[in-house]
């Protein structure tokens, strides 16, 4: 599957948030980096088909998102987890993920298998009967990821999926993402470590424009020793920011 953004213009009211962005997403894990307000969430929401483009086009395997009908055609291939995702605290984990599978249009025979597979991938099989409200923060986040990946959508969009996770849970998360081979995984994050560990490609957004789009190693090579940061990747990220934002 290919997702192509061509000259995408996006925003809210009078504000432009994404400014003439063009890129192609292919299977693999892509990180979306950028400061707050860079347009990461807006880009994810656009790809999730909740925000129609203001101008330009978004196409999924040649299907251009023009209206609600065309958006619905591709939604079974899109798994989306907002940063603050909603749930019924009294719902069981299994029901929560089953509901997601149904919303994604999975037929009954596929649904049970997909739910089991998703729960297995996020390691919540033995918690499937537990209520969502009783889960710890990390387990809840994993249940959210199961929501996004149930049915193995070909485009998985995760907005800040590792926020609030402890180091062990972040390692678990990386293992989960590693299991999504064959899908396009686009995750927005502030955590450079995650990018280095699991991503094949990085897109750095700033002011709605892609300041960088390429392999992680290429981004690392941009780092300068005089810039703040604990790793080459952090220094490279700082390098892409405007000069006035490079100093701490």
């Amino acid at each position, binding site marked *: 599957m290919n997702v192509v953004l061509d000259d995408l213009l996006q925003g809210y009211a009078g504000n432009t948030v994404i400014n003439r962005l063009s890129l192609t997403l292919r299977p693999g894990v892509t990180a979306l980096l950028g400061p707050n307000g860079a347009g990461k969430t807006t880009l994810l929401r656009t790809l999730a088909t909740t925000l129609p483009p203001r101008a330009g086009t978004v196409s999924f395997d040649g299907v251009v998102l023009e209206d609600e009908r065309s958006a619905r055609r591709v939604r079974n291939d899109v798994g989306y987890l907002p940063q603050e995702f909603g749930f019924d605290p009294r719902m069981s984990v299994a029901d929560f993920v089953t509901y997601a599978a149904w*919303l994604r249009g999975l037929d009954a025979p596929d649904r049970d298998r997909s739910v089991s597979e998703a729960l297995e991938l996020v390691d919540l099989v033995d918690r499937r009967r537990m209520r969502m409200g009783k889960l710890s923060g990390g387990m809840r986040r994993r249940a959210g990821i199961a929501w996004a990946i149930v049915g193995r959508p070909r485009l998985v969009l995760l907005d800040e999926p590792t926020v609030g996770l402890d180091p062990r849970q972040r390692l678990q998360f990386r293992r989960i993402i590693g299991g999504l081979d064959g899908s396009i995984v686009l995750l927005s994050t502030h955590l450079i470590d995650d990018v280095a560990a699991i991503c094949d490609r990085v897109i750095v957004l700033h002011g709605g424009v892609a300041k960088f789009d390429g392999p992680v190693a290429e981004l690392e090579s941009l780092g300068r020793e005089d810039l703040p940061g604990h790793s080459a990747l952090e220094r490279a990220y700082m390098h892409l920011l405007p000069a006035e934002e490079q100093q701490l």
Partner: protein
Amino acid sequence: MRIFWLHVRNSPVRWTVPVLVALDLAILFLRTQYWVGVWPETGAAAQVPAYLLGVLVAGAAAWAAAAPVRRGMQEQLSVAKVHPAGVDGYRLAATTAILTVPYLIGQMVAFAVTARTFPPGVLLWFAYALLGLSVTFLSVSLGWLLGRFFGGGFGAMTAALGWLFVLALTNFLTGDFVVVTGRPYLAVDAFTLAVRFGCLVLMAVALLWLPESGRRSRWPGQGLVSVASAAALMMLAVVTPPVTNRPVPEGEGRICISGRTTLCIWQEQEKYRPLMATLSGRIDGLPTAFTPPPEVREFGLDARHGLDERLGVSPPHFYILEGSPWSYGGMISTEIMSSTFAWRDPACDWGRMSDADQLRSDAVLAWLEAYLVGDVTPDYSTDAPSAMQQAWASGRRVAAERPLPEQFDWAAGEVISIRGEYCAKR
């Protein structure tokens, strides 16, 4: 079906079921119990909670309608492959099913109670059960509409008040939306039921086309058109008269007890047959000074019933109001007094009747009523003039304090005396 059950078991209003069941049964059994053993009364009594609990049902429906907003799930739902009408359709169906269960339990319990004697007319029960079901659906629809617009807490409160407003408005406009009794001469209008359920189906469609919360309309004016359609359909559903007069039955459609006065009741009132037989025996035992009418029928058993009674053309009749013996005892007493004294006979001169004689006849009437009912304490109150009430009390004292032969002597003496004064020819 599994998805439907997923919605049911995760509905935010599932906890209301035991509460609503308890309230429904409390209303059913604590309000009255005269309905036991009469199908139309059973159906009507068991649908009364639908009006009263509509306040809670509408509020709960609003709470359920706003659940995705309350839980912050709009964005996840907006990415659904399933059409928004499908997403809401399951939620609405589950909410409706849950909030209907208490009503249905109430109706089934009422059915089971009356089914022990299984009198005729079970279809009348069924029609009232459907009527109550339509009322429950209406309250759910109202709640859903307001919940989608105003959110959880405020929406629930608005919906509860909205249901009270609907009851008040329909009472003002037509006065017959709320049905509290299933009198045998009335039946639920099949046309009304068809209109109501048709409106409910169309309302459901309108509700499912409400724009998703926090999302743009799919077409201009979508929200306005949906709300206006739902409101108009609800108005149409509630102003259609729910009950209509039944045709006069012949033959087996009625039960008649022969005697000096033949007493006829609707066949559905079978449980009152022993009471009517007792009453008939008491009429037979009246002194010969009394001339009871040859036949008195329960209202609706004569084609002429229902004519303007002020014209004096309605034949003798009585009602059995909520099973009260004082209702039929009182009306039959009045009919016996009317035929005994021939109030309308132009050959008599009742126009010159003195106040004192009027009060004497009132005392006889009260005695006759107490004699026929077999009790001296009426179950009704009245604001009649005090002189009249005193006359009634004196008549009941006769029934309470004197042996029966003495009562008969007194009553016959009064009848002969009064009639002789003003209507000697009879």
